[in-house]
């Protein structure tokens, strides 16, 4: 059936979650969206191996897994020498909903954070954001990952307080 939406039939997705029922829910939703190419893993160690072998276009991962959790998995995706794509859109899907969890996930380099319980609409919106508005990446001494600022420079009219922005302005 053709329409005005995304054709996702060529998109490759890796799902990393220790709960097989949850993997089934995610996969079923993605299949309904039109995705047909999947790999799955039940924790981050195997998940990273699958990531290297499969080189997906999109990753959806859980947080609480053992022995390697979603935070460490994300760190490897973003920083390991053998990571086939450090820029891959990575959606962390988790029932950890406290603010400090969101901050921790953001600071390890997730692209989008999605709280369980999952809805089809919220998953579609996150995938759409990853397609339509991919974020630039930032590398500093302590961080590599998507730009953590939601607003772009053009929206702000006040003084530039970041050292990096002041330097950039001085160099212009």
């Amino acid at each position, binding site marked *: 059936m053709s329409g005005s939406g995304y054709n996702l039939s060529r998109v490759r997705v890796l799902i990393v979650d220790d*709960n097989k029922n949850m993997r089934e829910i995610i996969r*079923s939703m993605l299949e309904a*969206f039109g995705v047909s190419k999947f790999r799955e893993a039940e924790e981050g160690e195997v998940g990273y191996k699958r990531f290297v072998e499969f080189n997906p276009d999109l990753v959806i991962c859980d947080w*609480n897994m053992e022995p390697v959790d979603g935070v460490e998995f994300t760190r490897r995706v973003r920083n390991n020498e053998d990571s086939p794509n450090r820029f891959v859109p990575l959606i962390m899907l988790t029932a950890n909903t406290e603010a400090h969890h969101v901050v921790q996930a953001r600071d390890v380099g997730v692209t989008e954070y999605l709280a369980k319980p999952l809805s*089809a609409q919220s998953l*579609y919106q996150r995938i759409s954001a990853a397609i339509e508005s991919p974020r630039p*990446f930032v590398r500093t001494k302590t961080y590599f990952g998507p730009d953590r600022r939601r607003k772009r420079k053009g929206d702000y009219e006040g003084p530039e307080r970041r*050292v*990096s922005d002041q330097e950039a302005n001085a160099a212009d």
Partner: protein
Amino acid sequence: MAKATKGKNYEVIVPPSKLADRVSKGGPDPAEAISRADHTVQEMKKDYKTWLREDIERLMNALGALRGSSGAEDRTAKAESLFRASFDIKGQAGTFGFTILSRVAKSLCKLLEEKPSIETDDFGVIVAHVDAMRASAIEQTDGTPSRISLEVVAALEGIVAKRLQR
């Protein structure tokens, strides 16, 4: 090829988007895609009721182990197992419309995660949560929550909030 802008101690990189490259037009309209996915979830509901029975059994077993624990260290380990069982229910129940069940699980997870240590005088509160989750699962309380179930979950959340303030 990625484009990069460098500063003194930072680099901004605009990478090519592999994902966008794989996506073409001509797929179902977003509303249609979401509706299909919602329908798929509805079809999975009968599977979820089986999964839920298994999760509740796991929850009950974890509660039994916690009640039989000996000493603080054992209690902590058993509380962690109970947390994991409740956490899985918290993460899935709401997807299938069991909003009360998800809230009660969330309240129990909050207690187990944020209280520095679980003591024997916490058992009453924990049992109350597990009983509410069992009742919700048995009655298959999905769809619009009843006034009583809303009052019960609010009461449990209030008890947990007070306990964490101590």
